[in-house]
């Protein structure tokens, strides 16, 4: 029997606010344990939560960017369970009335373009962090750090529309790109700012009834998501083929073995007894607020890519690379404003600039060659002051010194030689020194032309205008 996997993703997006969702404690990562806490996030009796307005704004942003409907009224609910990282004995989340519903994202791949439904996006608080064994004094116990408790999260729940691990990764990458573009999440998967639970089931091909699903928890890289889902699909198929049954359970992915394993003893915990949190009043979002947020949205990657292809007439590949991150696109656009020739500019940004960043390990925002300088350099090429080849030397120099290209060209004597007489003189010398090759060329062996171009360029230290060299060389060789 052939099987069809069915996958839905629940993604937790940690929001880039300064403070927690219901109190004024800092959300900075890496502080000493329990130093960023107060009665609200410690869950002390009598402390009352007050909603951070920025969290709502970020949720509206995410909703609009994923084509959701923004609920006019939404309500916070308590999700009740006991765990040592949850000080109140409940997590404040949203249940029946989430802030965003019924959205979608389009993913591209070998399957063409496919629309993946987004069931809902809701706001909630994160739990604290448990440590085991890393702290010597803990002995046989576990340590609880509540710095992360009450950190604002969005949970983005997809429809079970994904049919392979690759589709799941494509969806995840797209969502990741969007929340980072929106400036609402730093996207750091290792630190847990963007984490994913995957619901995976399989059913016979042609069936319309989904199989029993297993939920794989907290997979913290795109590679692991692919691995975990592929492993889980195979595990379930093997199980069914051997006459077994998939049980609904939570499983944990182990990156070392590449396998998922069952987390036992949590069955009972799934009875969450949600009810509206009486401490938090309903949230009512006016159409004006939604419109205000909509006007503040940046151009999103899909539209940007389309615009680069249609308006700037860039190839699909270039558009994809240049819009991969918002910062790179902003750099490119800052250059474009000063040097409005998209394709040559794209080549430089994807070539020299990207190479320089990779070699030095710098982010584009720290690029030593500013858009202003890069534009000046390209203008020097267009003006014929330097050749494209020399421009690369100048670029490296700019990277090191941050100097303006015109000054580097002047200081190093790199101005392109476009003086016909000067170039002819060099050609004469080269021809005189290579009589044999001249005869070969005249005897019909036109391949040696390249040899002459190389020699002339070298004799001019790369400064001769290549177009002129070609033209004059041909004339002289043909005699």
């Amino acid at each position, binding site marked *: 029997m052939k099987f069809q996997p069915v996958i839905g993703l629940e993604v937790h997006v940690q929001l880039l606010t300064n403070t927690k969702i219901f109190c004024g404690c800092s959300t900075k990562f890496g502080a000493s344990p*329990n*130093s960023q806490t107060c009665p609200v996030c410690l869950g002390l009796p009598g402390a009352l939560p007050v909603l951070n307005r920025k969290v709502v704004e970020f949720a509206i942003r995410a909703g609009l960017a994923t084509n959701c409907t923004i609920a006019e009224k939404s309500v916070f609910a308590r999700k009740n369970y006991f765990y*040592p990282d949850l000080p109140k004995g409940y997590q404040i989340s949203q249940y029946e009335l989430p802030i965003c519903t019924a959205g979608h994202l389009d993913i591209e791949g070998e399957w063409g373009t496919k629309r993946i439904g987004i069931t809902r996006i809701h706001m909630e608080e994160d739990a604290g962090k448990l440590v085991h064994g890393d702290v010597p004094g*803990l002995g046989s*116990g576990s*340590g609880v750090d509540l710095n992360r408790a009450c950190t604002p999260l969005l949970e983005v729940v997809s429809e079970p529309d994904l049919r392979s691990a690759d589709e799941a990764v494509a969806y995840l990458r797209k969502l990741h790109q969007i929340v980072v573009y929106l400036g609402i999440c730093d996207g750091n998967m290792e630190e847990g700012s963007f984490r994913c639970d995957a619901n995976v089931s399989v059913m016979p091909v042609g069936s319309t009834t989904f199989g029993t699903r297993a939920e794989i928890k907290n997979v913290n890289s795109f590679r692991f998501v692919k691995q975990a889902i592929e492993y889980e699909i195979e595990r379930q198929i093997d199980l069914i083929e051997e006459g077994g049954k998939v049980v609904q359970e939570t499983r944990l992915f182990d990156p070392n073995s590449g396998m998922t394993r069952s987390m036992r003893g949590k069955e009972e915990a799934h009875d969450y007894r949600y009810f509206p949190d009486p401490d938090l009043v309903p949230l009512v979002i006016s159409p004006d607020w939604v419109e205000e947020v909509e006007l503040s949205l940046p151009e999103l990657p899909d539209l940007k890519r389309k615009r680069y292809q249609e308006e700037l007439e860039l190839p699909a590949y270039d558009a994809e690379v240049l819009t991969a991150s918002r910062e790179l696109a902003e750099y490119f656009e800052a250059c474009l404003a000063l040097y409005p020739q998209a394709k040559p500019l794209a080549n430089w940004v994807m070539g020299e600039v990207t190479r320089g960043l990779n070699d030095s390990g710098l982010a584009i925002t720290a690029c030593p060659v500013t858009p202003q300088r890069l534009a000046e350099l390209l203008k020097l090429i267009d003006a014929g002051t330097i050749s494209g080849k020399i421009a690369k030397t100048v670029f490296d120099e700019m990277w090191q010194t941050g100097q303006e290209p015109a000054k580097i060209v002047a200081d190093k004597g790199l101005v392109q030689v476009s003086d016909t007489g000067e170039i002819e003189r060099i050609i004469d010398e080269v021809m005189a020194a290579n009589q044999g090759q001249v005869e070969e060329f005249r005897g019909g062996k036109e391949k040696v032309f390249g040899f002459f171009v190389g020699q002339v360029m070298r004799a001019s230290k790369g400064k001769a205008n290549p177009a002129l060299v070609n033209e004059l060389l041909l004339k002289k060789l043909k005699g």
Partner: protein
Amino acid sequence: MKITRAEVEHVARLARLELSAEEAEIFTGQMDAILAYVDKLNELDTTGITPTSHAVPVENAFRADEERPSIGTDNAMANAPDRVDGFFRVPKVIE
């Protein structure tokens, strides 16, 4: 009956309460009486009425995203029965 003894035991387990057999029996009777009393509300016709999540007519209480001083690790830990190096210490939990 509005509630069974098995349900009472389930709810007790969710709340991490250990009930003796007699207690379970007593609470089943008491909870059943409470539920029967509350059930009177179902006699009202609520067709077309939006469910009420909050009793006070207030909406949108916000704070600005501005940092306020935390209370500090020592204060946070003041009532902790057990602590090590700034952590609350609890019996070992393994996922």
